[in-house]
């Protein structure tokens, strides 16, 4: 562990902060697996209680040449709820990466700071006696291991190590692009989940591609109430209105083989011609072998009750992927689009959208790197199941 540089003292996360982090980490997540979430929360609380507060490293305090390792849950949270962790998984995974990398880790960074992933990263840091980096590799929820800004910055996820609750440890060294395919069957064979330690890199490198401040943002959000709870994400309001209809969507993410561009290629700012990487050929229904989603593609129609009284179509599959205002795209992936109840400002699960409900549709901007053509392509082909 590198000693923090001089300047303001580094904040340490305590059990009390954990409570706020736990609330804040799922402000934007409407459909968390309750049972798994409580497993992660109780686990992290126990590690904090046993090993003391965890220093939270701001981006300017990262160990310049020290090894940082990203940690995340790999697999299904439903499996985490059924086969409980022993508590040794994080440390085994980190140690395995250290062995391959040939040096000791000096900080743990959450691969993403949403729901149980943030909690598991905190548990890992506590258990390993390492500081937690205040930031993450995504800036928003994306389901696949390779859907990170680290990937965009050219950092490979491998060497990557998986530690399962059964005590298995698997280290993966692989060329970029195949990690997900290798990891999935391993995770399945081990009961459905594992802790993954990945993207080992220097602090300086991490500082260049990290989404900074997301852990402290979640803690702040968890401590706040009402409208202030969303404030740390600086949501932009798209419209205020009422749900007028909920339609089953055909999920038109057509599988265009041979590199032909699919319909989504026309999205604003997208690569008009469609480079090979930007081809949205994975369909929402086309990746179930890899990522089955518990929901069906759904369209929610919202009629604005002020201003232009436009009609908004929210196209969702597990999360809201696209918003059209009278047919014109108003927001789309990688924006994070949320439907809030106007009475209590809860995030409404698309699955539970009911016509007549007063809603506000808000957009939270993703980190800028996601808006580059490569970023869009990576987010689209992964998020919500598109590959």
């Amino acid at each position, binding site marked *: 562990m590198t000693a923090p540089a001089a300047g303001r003292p580094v904040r340490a996360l305590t059990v009390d902060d954990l409570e706020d982090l736990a609330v804040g980490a799922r402000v934007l997540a409407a459909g968390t697996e309750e049972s798994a979430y409580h497993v992660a929360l109780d686990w992290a609380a126990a590690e904090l209680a046993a090993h003391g507060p965890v220093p939270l490293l701001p981006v300017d305090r990262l160990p310049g040449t020290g090894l940082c390792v990203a940690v995340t849950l790999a697999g299904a949270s439903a499996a985490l709820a059924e086969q409980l962790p022993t508590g040794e998984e994080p440390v085994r995974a980190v140690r395995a990466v250290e062995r391959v990398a040939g040096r000791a880790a000096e900080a743990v960074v959450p691969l993403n700071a949403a729901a149980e992933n943030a909690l598991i990263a905190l548990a890992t840091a506590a258990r390993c006696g390492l500081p937690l980096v205040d930031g993450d590799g995504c800036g928003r929820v994306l389901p696949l291991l390779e859907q990170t800004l680290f990937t965009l910055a050219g950092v490979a996820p491998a060497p990557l190590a998986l530690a399962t609750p059964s005590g298995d440890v698997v280290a993966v060294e692989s060329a970029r692009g195949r990690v997900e395919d290798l990891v999935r069957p391993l995770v399945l064979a081990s009961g459905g989940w594992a802790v993954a330690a990945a993207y080992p890199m220097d602090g300086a490198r991490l500082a260049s591609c990290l989404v900074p401040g997301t852990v402290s943002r979640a803690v702040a959000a968890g401590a706040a109430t009402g409208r202030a709870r969303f404030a740390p994400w600086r949501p932009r309001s798209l419209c205020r209105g009422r749900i007028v209809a909920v*339609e089953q969507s055909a999920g038109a993410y057509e599988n265009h083989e041979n590199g032909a561009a699919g*319909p989504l290629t*026309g999205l604003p700012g997208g690569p008009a011609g469609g480079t090979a990487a930007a081809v949205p050929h994975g369909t929402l229904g086309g990746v179930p072998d890899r990522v089955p989603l518990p929901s069906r593609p759904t369209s929610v129609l919202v009629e604005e009750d002020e201003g232009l009284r436009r*009609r908004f179509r929210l*196209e969702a599959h597990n999360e809201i992927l696209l918003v059209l205002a009278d047919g014109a*795209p108003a927001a789309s992936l990688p924006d994070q689009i949320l439907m809030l109840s106007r009475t209590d400002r809860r995030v409404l699960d698309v699955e539970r959208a009911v016509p007549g409900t007063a809603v506000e549709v808000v957009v939270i901007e993703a980190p800028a790197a996601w808006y580059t053509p490569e970023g869009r392509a990576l987010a689209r082909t992964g998020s919500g199941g598109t590959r």
Partner: protein
Amino acid sequence: MSGPDPGFRPLTLTELLQDGPLADIEVHGPVGAAVPVTAVRIVDRLAALDEVRPRSAVVLTAGAAAAAWTVEMALRKAWEQAAACVVVSREAGLPGSVAELAGRLGIPFLVVPGDPLDAAVRIASAVARPEAGRTALIAGAARQIAGAGIRPARLLSALHAVLPATSVALTGPAGELLAGRAGALDPTDRTARVTVEVAGPGGEPLAVLTAGFRDRPAGWEATVREVLGLAVAPLTAWAATERLAAERDGRRASGLLAELLARYGDDTTAEPDGARRDPGERRAPVGNERRSPGADAPRDVLEDPTGDERRALGRAEPNPPETGAADPHDPLLAAAVALGWPLRGPFVVHAVRPFGPAAPDSGPPGPETGPLLAARWARAGTGAGPLIAYEGVWVAWESVADPDGAGRDPLARAERRLRAACSEPGLPAPSAGAVAGPVASLGGLGQALADAVAAVGVARPGTVVRADRVGPAHLLTALPREALRAPARALLAPLLAVDRDGSLLRTLAVLLDVGGAPSVAAARLGVHRNTVSARLERLRALGCDPDDPGLRLPLHLACRVQLDATEPEVPEDQAEPPEGEPAG
């Protein structure tokens, strides 16, 4: 096309829709505007929309129209690029919310059956040759209609073939469906209707062609009207042919009438003016094998008529189901309309009995008298339909539906007209006439015909009687006078021998008429009661006792025959104008 032709006018969206390159199409958004369509753009990915030129028809492939949101984006883009319209396949199964957005944006949105690429090819060819497209429909229609001949069922089939997604019905004056699809008349099903009148050979209203279609662009109505117009002349020709045939062969009309009565006009169970079966009756036929062989078009049940129509058709109550109901496609009705027979009640029936060569006693009216009588009849202007041989006399009936004539007596008017007709010097023979009715509908026609035939039997040449006022005098005068004259004379011989001025005979007749009461007879005869008593004594003395039960009837008959021979009698009710009819 070689070079810009200064006279070249691009195809408009309206023309594209109405001239039929796209059949069975659903149109959303604005459709009335004369938006020019100059190109077709097939779009298989949304990015291609950026390259859409203004005034293009944008055809989305199945891939590009796979979800509501992709189509909505296409609509928006097309609108921004001032495209002429957006075309998708119905197979995309898009929700109504998409069409709604087309309406909000104001961009025409066309949903076509089948492959969108097929639609694209059709549009492209129409865009390339707009004039051809414009005239193709009318030309095609003319060819089809010419090939269909003059039978209504075939004509209507031809109309359906040339007018996509349009229902056409041919209806008679009473609104009864003669051929085609009842759906065309349904006011809720179709949003727009075009009607074209079909005149009979004499210029009288014969039938109406009605076309119904869903919301179509402006101009489509005009096209439909034009095409329907092409069918008017064949339909008039059809009516003329039918009438010619009927006049040439009176038996044909008689047979038709018998059939019509058997089917509709023989309702003995109904109230006199109550429920009757009717050609417009909307019940589906039960086991009715008399289906038109040409009725291949979809048969829709007629819509419930409005209250007024219901009254006019005499359809106050539904029929008892066992009596069967009218087939909305009954070719019998079509034939009746063609012959000019009124089918819309209420009716008044006319019966004419010629004496002499055309007399009913000399057998049924033969072909030799028929045409002549029929020609005179048509000229006489009674307002009734053509004469038909029926039960040994000639009958006809007129429709007396007269919304303004409430309270008038239609029978009195008919009687007056018929009397004028019967006394026309040009008639081939002296004729007697009778009128009967009114009856509310075809259901009562049989009864009214029977009444008229019975009444005309008691009418004397040159007179017209009302079936509802045939009294004892009429009945008695209906006796075969020539045959009875000799026995009458024999019976009354003692009386006639002494009755020089005929007063005894008249007194006897009146006493018999009034039931033997001297005071009443005195009043009727205008003499003192004692005079009648005195005459009665003399009559008894002569063996003519009106109180003798065995003699009363023979004496009464003999009196009438004898009096008839000496002083022709006029029924007393004709001495004054009929009620309701202004005098003079």
